[in-house]
């Protein structure tokens, strides 16, 4: 009989809806598995998409999964910035959207190895308050720059006022900082992939055994070649926009 809370061990892929916090999802799944439960990176409440949960003994493997590249789909409102770079902040500034040629130029500057300021609201919380409210308390933090790698940044749809982007970025890249660099803010944000895992495989009922999950990321202890297909899954098509 294994020690309580360590089994079942493995990776659970969840498609988070907009609204609840990532921790609410972790708690909900934990209530069912009755195991220790960790995660491979949170999503803000307004965001949707792939959460990678680590169950039982596999919580120890978090270090192997938190650094994976991420793929996102986001709608950016190009006519206004908000204090947080997302719809939850206060309107900061309204302006004319950039002409298409200017948008193209801005996007080109965001591809490759780039430095972006960390959105303050992501990084600093005082008693659960997001940082944008802290200005009222006289607290203005100068956010340091973080190095990011943007491997893909493609326009999926474009109207004069908004743009839908498909991005493949290194772990720790804030999509909101990219929206801010375009002079806008994210109105939607959906994580479609974490490393080799796609949101179309999300299934809360299924636990991917740790050795199989590690094999897919080419991690330590893998017994299968990297990229080996997950046979228990219904051979999902990878999401390609």
């Amino acid at each position, binding site marked *: 009989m294994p020690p309580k809370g360590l089994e079942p061990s493995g990776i659970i892929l969840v498609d988070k809806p907009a609204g609840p916090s990532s*921790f609410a999802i972790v708690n909900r799944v934990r209530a069912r598995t009755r195991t220790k439960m960790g*995660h*491979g990176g949170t999503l803000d409440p307004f965001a949707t998409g792939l959460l990678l949960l680590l169950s039982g003994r596999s919580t120890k493997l978090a270090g192997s999964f938190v650094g994976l590249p991420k793929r996102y789909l986001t709608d950016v409102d190009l006519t206004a910035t908000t204090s947080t770079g997302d719809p939850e902040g206060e309107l900061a500034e309204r302006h004319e959207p950039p002409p298409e040629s200017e948008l193209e130029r801005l996007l080109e500057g965001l591809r490759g190895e780039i430095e972006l300021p960390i959105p303050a609201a992501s990084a*600093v*919380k*005082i*008693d659960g308050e997001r940082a944008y409210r802290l200005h009222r308390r006289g607290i203005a933090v100068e956010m*340091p720059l973080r190095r990011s790698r943007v491997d893909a940044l493609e326009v999926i749809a474009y109207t004069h006022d908004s743009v839908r982007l498909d991005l493949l970025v290194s772990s720790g890249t804030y999509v909101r900082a990219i929206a801010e660099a375009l002079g806008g803010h994210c109105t939607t944000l959906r994580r479609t992939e974490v490393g080799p895992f796609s949101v179309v495989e999300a299934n809360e009922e299924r636990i991917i055994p740790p050795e199989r999950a590690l094999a897919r990321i080419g991690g330590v202890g893998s017994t299968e070649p990297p990229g080996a297909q997950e046979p228990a899954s219904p051979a999902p098509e990878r999401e390609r926009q």
Partner: protein
Amino acid sequence: MTAVAIGMFDGVHRGHRSVLEAALATGLPVRVLTFDPHPRTVVQGNLVELISTLERRVELLLELGAAEVTVLPFTLETAALEPETFAAEQLAGVEVVVAGEDFRFGRRRRGDLAMLDGLGHRVVRVPLLGGVSSSEIRRLVHEGDLVGAAVQLGRPFELDGTVVPGDQRGGTLGYPTANLALDPALLVPRYGIYAGAAREHRAAISIGTNPHYGGNERRIEPYLLDFDGDLYGQRLVVELWERLRDEEVFANEPELIAQIARDVERTRSASRPGGIQRG
């Protein structure tokens, strides 16, 4: 999933950095859990002179690689919490907790890392760095030993404030200074003249009452070398590198101006202690 580094981190000195480095070494994103105001101020009612402002503390922690900083307002209610309650409220679901080995929390400081270990957290206990402590830094800064303080901090000591209108006297002397207003809770070095830097410019800084002019109010006045700009109303972070001399009363104004010129020359050749040259 995150590693949580917990502590006061006032000044973010070398000991604090070793705690953060141990947290980063787990390979997990690091969230720092810190407090404001200083718990000793709340519990004992004594003012603890802060080495850094809260803003600067957060900035330094983020620069060192923390992914997130959570600041918990520290109140008498926080202090009265049983440590088990505090852990349940603030550390629920946290896999890895990292802190200095002397970390204590909760009512009567009964909670410690062994307790968190017993509550099921993976605990990383970081040994104290010999001789490095916030109180030692306060002592060195009081004495005006900014080089000693920088060794402990791993960077120069800083004053972080807002530029406000002053006496407008420096301008008439040929050395326009900024008048820096500080939160009264902050640590300030022994009165005197210091060499340092602000906004990537070297700076000569006067701290004290300007006795030559019979002042009795404390003023902190950096003169930024080769700087021409308006700083009014802006935040200014001033690095203090080295103590140059005491405040003095001069026989006449030309003597004062000649001394300022010598201070400025010494500021040009001063070196930045405690780390790599930036400005």
